[in-house]
Structure formats: structure tokens, C-alpha cells
């Protein structure tokens, strides 16, 4: 019996490294803290190494693909391409830091085997989504993601978190039904659901005869994905889900869930329809308007929140739509901006949620009004928070600036001047909901003047500091090789976007 060739084994290993860890963790006795932590970190580190090796291979032009026949001539396909590696590198890295954070965060709380089991399944699903070579495979893991995040959202088992979980499913399940309808429709219409560069899979379809069907399928697909990407009007679950434990929020907002939606929209626009066809059918223009509306609406709602995590959640609604805007603008530079924001938003937003979790865990502060003097009490946490907040606003030299710069230039390039206005207004709103908070923390005296300095414990602090540092580094060194921006340029070349 011969072993699988590396080109087939690598995608499977990336997928199963976290799956196996999850299965073993499920069976672990609740008290086996050390073994569980070792497994968690070991699997996360192993995946990171694997991803690094594959990344080098892809850069050198190697191809990786493995398929399994599933149903009616359609296969489960795991395929590595530059775009999938963008997402997989992001999630593998953020999974690692989130695991460190979660181990610290959940110390002493019950049902940890269950939590980390589903946590690992969740990452398995994300890897599957990233590696999916066609819509069927994508859907397969997209659903797995929904199902494995639900137990995490309701982990605390309180009435409030059960309600959040219910609302999450209330959006996710109908949306996935629409997605499935779109996928089967596409499969019946074109006989395939492959992701192929520039949507060449649709090349044989007479577009004029099937314009209605193609538009309907696009709306179903994007509608199904929009619920995860929290695109207007399917954003309602995300602010509710903020009752979940902080590591889960990080997972929802940065690593997996909203990203899976945004990533899926990229796949549909770039690799199923192709930019040209999406533009010719008038679909990408509609998507751009929807994304712009979401950006503004999310920012306005964030402004009105007095709960820190809820404000961050509304900020995510707004920020994820930058990615979608970049995709929908359909110009070369805007594409770079959208793609790179997938990474940048993840790193900045996870920092913010780590910090919010630190503040809540260490000082039981949840409301923005209680943040006075927090900079003196937790200087490291608040420093990380401030950097990420400045990044969200888009100030140089942070990573957020790079994203917004490319989006703005890209918009002008395709003549969409109105987008500049949206970007400007949104940046002002971002500043309006982040800066007063930062000011309060550093410059206003704490309510209790005697309160001393007490920062979060190291397992909670270090992940936040790492991602905060990256927020600056990825901005400063954006133009060097091995940054997300460099990789995004490679994607644009490879896919001829």
C-alpha cells in the first residue's frame, strides 16, 4: 500500500489536524487540564507549521488537490490555491493565539472538554471552507461551521446566551437553505459547481438565455452567504451573539464565521461567476451599494451602543463590508484592498475583543461609561486596544490604513467617486465611536481613585499584544514580501482578477 502523495496528503493533514484533536478532546475527562491544553496547542502549532510548508510550496508553484466522489457526479474537493491560503493562514494563526487566550480565559469554568472539542471542530470547518474546491464542498463545511459554533455561542447556558444562539440559528439556517437552493440550481443549470479562475466554469452557458436564472442563483448564493458576513439586512444576529465568551467572539468576528461569509462571497464573485459576468448582469453593482449601506449603518449603530462588546460587534458589521465592497467594486486596486482587509480586519478586531474580554474578566467592566481611567489600571491591555482602534479608524501606519488606502484608490480607478464619500464618512464615524473611548480610558480619572494597577494575566495579555503588534507591523512593512499585501498581489495575478 502506498501512502498518499504529498500533494493530496497536505490538504487532508491541514483539515484533520484540528479534527482529530477535537475528537480526542471530546472524550477527555473534564479534569485532564494539562493534557487538553497540550492537545489544543499542539494541534494549533502543528497546523501552523503545515500551513507554512504548504505556503512555501504554493509560492513555488506546487499544486495540492484531493477529491472524494460524493453525490451524483459531484465531488468533495479540497484544493489549495493562493486565495485559500490567504484565509487558511489567517485562521491558523488566529486560532493559535485564540487557543492560548481561551485556555487562560476559561480556567476554572465547567464543560471545557465540550468547549474545546467544538472549538476544534469549528476550525476544522474553517479550513474546509478555505480549501473547498467547489460550492458543494464549501456548503458542506459552511454548515459544519454553523453547527459547531452554536454550542460555543450558548456555552454558558444562560437564558441570554441561549437566546443569542437561537437568533444565530434563526439567521443561519434559512440562509443556508437559500445557499443550498442556489448551489443545486447552479449544478442543474451548468452541470458543475467548480471554483475556476474568472468563472470559466460558466463559459459554456448561454448567458442571454439564462440571464434570469443566473441572477436568481446569484441572489440566492449571496443571500445565503450574507447572513454570515452580516450584510444588511441579515446582520441582526451578530450584535446579539456578543454574549458569548470572549474567545468565541474572537472566533465569530475575526477567525471564522463572518470571514467564512465574506470569503464565500469572494469565491462566488471571482471564481463562480467571474467579475465580468457579475458586472454585466448588474450584480456586482448591487452588491457594492449594499456593502456601502452596511458600512454606514453599522458605524451609526455602533455609535449608539453603551456596551463595549456590543459596540465592537456593530463595528464588525461595518468593517466586514469593506471586504465585500472591495470585491464588488471590481477594479484591480479595490480588489487588493478588499482581499487584504480580510486579514487586516481579522487581526485588528481580534485584538479589540481580546482586550474587551480582559477588561471584563479582570475588572468586570462591560459598559463604556465605566472605562474611565482604564489606561492607568491596565496599561498594556489598553495600549493594545488603542492601537487596534486606531487601525480600525484607518490611521497610518496601521494595517487598517493600507486597506482603506487601496479601497479609496481602487474606487477612484473605476470611477466610483461616491465610494470615497462613504469611506470618509465611515472613517469619521469610526473615529467618533472609538476615540472618546480611548480618551476616557487614558485621560479621565478612574471612578475609584484608590484603584491600583492590575492588568490581565499573561495568557490573556500576550495574545492581545501579539495581534496589536501585528496591526502596526503589517501596516509599516506592507510593501515587503511575505506580508498579506504581497500575497494578495499574488492572488490577483494568479486569478487574473
Amino acid at each position, binding site marked *: 500500500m502506498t501512502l498518499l502523495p504529498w500533494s493530496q496528503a497536505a490538504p487532508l493533514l491541514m483539515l484533520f489536524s484540528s479534527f482529530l484533536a477535537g475528537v480526542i478532546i*471530546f472524550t477527555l475527562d473534564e479534569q485532564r487540564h494539562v493534557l487538553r491544553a497540550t492537545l489544543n496547542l499542539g494541534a494549533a502549532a502543528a497546523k501552523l507549521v503545515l500551513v507554512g510548508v504548504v505556503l512555501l510550496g504554493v509560492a513555488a508553484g506546487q499544486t495540492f488537490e484531493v477529491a472524494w466522489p*460524493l*453525490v451524483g457526479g459531484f465531488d468533495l474537493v479540497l484544493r489549495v490555491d493562493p486565495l485559500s491560503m490567504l484565509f487558511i493562514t489567517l485562521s491558523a494563526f488566529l486560532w493559535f493565539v485564540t487557543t492560548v487566550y481561551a485556555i487562560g480565559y476559561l480556567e476554572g469554568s465547567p464543560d471545557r472538554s465540550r468547549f474545546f472539542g467544538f472549538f476544534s471542530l469549528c476550525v476544522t470547518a474553517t479550513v474546509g471552507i478555505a480549501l473547498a474546491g467547489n460550492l458543494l464542498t464549501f456548503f458542506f463545511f459552511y454548515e459544519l461551521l454553523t453547527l459547531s459554533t452554536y454550542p460555543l455561542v450558548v456555552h454558558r*447556558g444562560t437564558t441570554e446566551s441561549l437566546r443569542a*444562539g437561537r437568533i444565530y440559528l434563526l439567521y443561519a439556517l434559512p440562509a443556508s*437553505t437559500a445557499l443550498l437552493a442556489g448551489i443545486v440550481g447552479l449544478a442543474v443549470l451548468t452541470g458543475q459547481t467548480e471554483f475556476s479562475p474568472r468563472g470559466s466554469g460558466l463559459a459554456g452557458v448561454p448567458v442571454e438565455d439564462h440571464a434570469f436564472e443566473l441572477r436568481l442563483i446569484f441572489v440566492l448564493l449571496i443571500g445565503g452567504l450574507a447572513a454570515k458576513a452580516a450584510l444588511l439586512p441579515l446582520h441582526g444576529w451578530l450584535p446579539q451573539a456578543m454574549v458569548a465568551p470572549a474567545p468565541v467572539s474572537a472566533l465569530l468576528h475575526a477567525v471564522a464565521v463572518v470571514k467564512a461569509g465574506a470569503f464565500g462571497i469572494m469565491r462566488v464573485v471571482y471564481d463562480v461567476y467571474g467579475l465580468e459576468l457579475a458586472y454585466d448582469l448588474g450584480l456586482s453593482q448591487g452588491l457594492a451599494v449594499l456593502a456601502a449601506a452596511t458600512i454606514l449603518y453599522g458605524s451609526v449603530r455602533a455609535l449608539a451602543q453603551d456596551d463595549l462588546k456590543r459596540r465592537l460587534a456593530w463595528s464588525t458589521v461595518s468593517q466586514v463590508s469593506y471586504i465585500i465592497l472591495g470585491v464588488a467594486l471590481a477594479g484591480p486596486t479595490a480588489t487588493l484592498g478588499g482581499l487584504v482587509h480580510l486579514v487586516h480586519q481579522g487581526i485588528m478586531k481580534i485584538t479589540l475583543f481580546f482586550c474587551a474580554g480582559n477588561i471584563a474578566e479582570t475588572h468586570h467592566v462591560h459598559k463604556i461609561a465605566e472605562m474611565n481611567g482604564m489606561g492607568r489600571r491596565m496599561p498594556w491591555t489598553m495600549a493594545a486596544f488603542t492601537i487596534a482602534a486606531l487601525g480600525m479608524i484607518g490611521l497610518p501606519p496601521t494595517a487598517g490604513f493600507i486597506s482603506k488606502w487601496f479601497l479609496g484608490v481602487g474606487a477612484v480607478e473605476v470611477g466610483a467617486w461616491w465610494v470615497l464619500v462613504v469611506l470618509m464618512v465611515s472613517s469619521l464615524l469610526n473615529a467618533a465611536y472609538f476615540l472618546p473611548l480611548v480618551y476616557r480610558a487614558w485621560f479621565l480619572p478612574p471612578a475609584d481613585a484608590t484603584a491600583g494597577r492590575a492588568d490581565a494575566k499573561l495568557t490573556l495579555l500576550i495574545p492581545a499584544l501579539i495581534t496589536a503588534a501585528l496591526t502596526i507591523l503589517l501596516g509599516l512593512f506592507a510593501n515587503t514580501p511575505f506580508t498579506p499585501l504581497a500575497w494578495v498581489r499574488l492572488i490577483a495575478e494568479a486569478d487574473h482578477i
Partner: protein
Amino acid sequence: MSLAPLLIPWAAALALALPLLAGAACFVVGGRAAATLALGVAVLSSAAGIVLTAGVEADGVQRLALAGWAPPLGIVWRIDGLAALAVALTGLIFAAVLVHAEKSLDLLRGEGLSEAFRPLALVLLGGLNALYMANDVFNLYVTLELVTLAAVGMVALAGDPAAALRYLLVGVLGALAYMLGCGLLYAAFGTLDLDLLAGRVEPGGTASAALALMIVGVMAKGALFPLHGWLPPAHGSAVAPASALLSGVVAKGGFYVLLRLWLDVYPATGAAPAAAQILGVLGTLAVLWGSLQAIRQTRLKVLLAYSTVAQLGYLMVSLPLIASAAGHASGLAGALHLMASHACAKAAMFLTAGSLIATRGHDRLADLKGAAHDHPMTAFTLGLAGMTLMGLPPSGGFIAKWLLLDASLRSGQWWWAAVILGGSLLAGVYVFLAVSWSMSRPPGEPSDAQPPPLPRRLEFAALALALVAMALGFVSAEHIP
């Protein structure tokens, strides 16, 4: 060299006769010996099914004439891929349920119940195997009667006597209608053998009337809407391992017969397309009614029973797809996938209900709080099996849903696609209601203190079935004939 000529007759005979003989033997021997015997027979029957599947895959459909007499004088058993797979899967489910029942029946109802459960289960197994392999209309009737009688016995074993009686009554009435149909066919065409009938039946009043009577008969026996009324009280009140067999396996018996007739005899009657549309509409109502009733329930077992009504509705919806030319192949594959994966999933769910009742003494959903904390594996099993009911990947239910959607769009009947998608959303609601209670934490301080654990075999028996339902989601549809 092919194995088939040597092994197939033995495997078929084993699947047909051994359960019935062992069922009788269980009255004589008791206790552990009987328990081992029953489990062994179920495993052997499943193994025989695997041998038959391999044989059919290698050498095609097998026909075995009893004692060498060819029809129309003799009786022929026919083993095709559908029958072989059904035998294999049924044996497997029976084995898992027997493992569970040996422990849980004592916990549920005190000592002694398993002595009565074993022979009934074995007779049921033998009846089902015979049903799968029957190749004439009358044998289908006889085997279906055998199955019904054993099933009624199971309901009466520890359930509501009124529910058992109602089940029996509906079963007898259904049998009557079916018999009338048989009589008409025999009078008009002179044979009851399915192969011969397929060649002889001519369109006309007699054939249509026979068709209608037989359909009504199997609908009553198989709890197909609107003749489903007996099922929820019967399956909801029976002792959980019995419900697992009834809802998982026996409930498909009626549809199985319908499908057999549909594939062989009905096309020739000329009335099939119209009947298919009517049955599709009834199936839609079953999906809606069953799901909405399931959503309203406050007890897990009754919820699961109504869910069976809804899932049988999908099978009826597959009929207009099977009847269409473009959707025939994927419609049929979808229906078979649905039967197989639902059988495993629903049996697994009833077993988890049994486990929960065994430890908590009830199955009221609102009082299942904290079950995921106390018995994580059982709660996980419930959710995993629930995925098949919702048709979410990875599960056999997803493959089934994909195929049925494919069939409806391919044949241009998009409205059935809407029914399937809408039904799976409703299934999402009731599965959510069944599972979510277990995630909520009971009032009071959470602690690491565990309640007395469930016996391992209860948890593993159910998990095994749920895993099979999931694994069916990775079996390429082409492998199911």
C-alpha cells in the same frame, strides 16, 4: 470465481429463517443465553445482508425459487441491491437496539421486560427481511402482516394499550384494502408475481382500482398521511427501544412495499403519474403537519414520533420525482438514501430518549436542562442524529436532500424543491427544540460534580447508529442502486 452462487442462497435463507427460529427459541431459553442469541442473530442477519450486497454488486439481481418451483406455481424471493442493503442495515439497527434494550428495559420498566422484548424483536426482524425479499404481491402482504403483528405486540409491551389497539385496527383495515387490490389483480391478470405482473398488467379500470386499493392499504400500514394518526401515540408511548425499531425501521415498511409496486407494476397501469402527483401533495401535507405538530410537543419521544410522520412525507414527495423521466434516477437514489439514513438517525434518537428516561425518569423537554453537562455523549448523539433529519452535511440526510432537490429541478418541478427546503427548515426548528434544552444550565451553581453516569453501552449503542447515519453522508450515491 464468483461467490454468489455458493453464498447467496445460504445468506438469504439465514436472513429469512434464523430470526424466526431464534425468536421461537427465546421462549424456551431465557436470561443471558437468550440475550446473546438475539444479538448474535441480529449481527448474523446484518452480515448476511452484506454478503448479499456484495453478491448483487458482482452478479446482479438474484432470484431464488423456493424448493425449486418457478412461478406462477412456486414462490420466488428476489434479492436486488435495495433488498440486500435493507437487510444489512436492518440487522445493524436491531443489533444496536438490542444492545441498548438489554440494559435500558430493566432500568425503564423493571426486570423481566426484555424476556418478552427479544422474541418480538426477532420475529420482527425475520418479517422485515422476508418483506425486503418478497417478489409477489401476496407475499408482500403476508410479510407486512407479520411485521404489523410483531410491531403491535411491541407497542402493547409497555405502551398505551389503546394506542396498540388503534394500530392493530388500522393495520387490519389496511390489510383488507390491500387484499382486495391483490384479488383484483389476480382475477384480471392471473398472477401475483411481480415480474410476471409487470409484463401482463394493462391500463384500465381494474388496474387503476387495484392500484388505488393497494396504495390505501400500504398507506394505512405505513402511516402515510392522512392515515398516520395511529403512529404518534403508538411510537410515543412504546418503550424507547421498541420505538427505535418501530420509527426507525418498521415505519418504512409501508413505503417500501409502495416503492416495490411502483417500480415494477404501476408504470404499466397508466395511472401512476396522476397517483404520483396526489401522493406528492399528501406528502407535502405530511411534512407540514408532522413538523408543526412536532414543534408543538413538550415530550421528546412524541416529538420524534411526529418527526417520523414528516419524514415519511418526504418519501411520498419523492414519488412524483421518481415518476418523471428526468428526475427518476436521482429521485430514487434520494428516497433510498433518506430511508437508510433516517432509519439509523431516528433509531439513534429514540435510543437517546430511552437513555435520558432511564436516568431522569421522564422525557419532558423543559426538564432536560443540563443534559449536555450531565451526559455529553448522549446530548451529542441527539444533535448528530438530528443533522440527518435537517438534511445538513455531513449526514446521509444531506445526500438525500441534494438528490431530491436535483431531481425536482431537473424534472422542472421546482415546487417539490420548495417543499423539501421548507420542510428541512421546519425540521431544523424541531430538532433545535429537542436539542437546545440540553444546553441550558439548570439553576444553581455550575459544578464539575458529575451525576451517576449512564451505562456505557446505552451511550455507545445510540452513538454508533448516529455515526452510521453520518457516515452515509460520505457514501457516494452511485453505490446505492
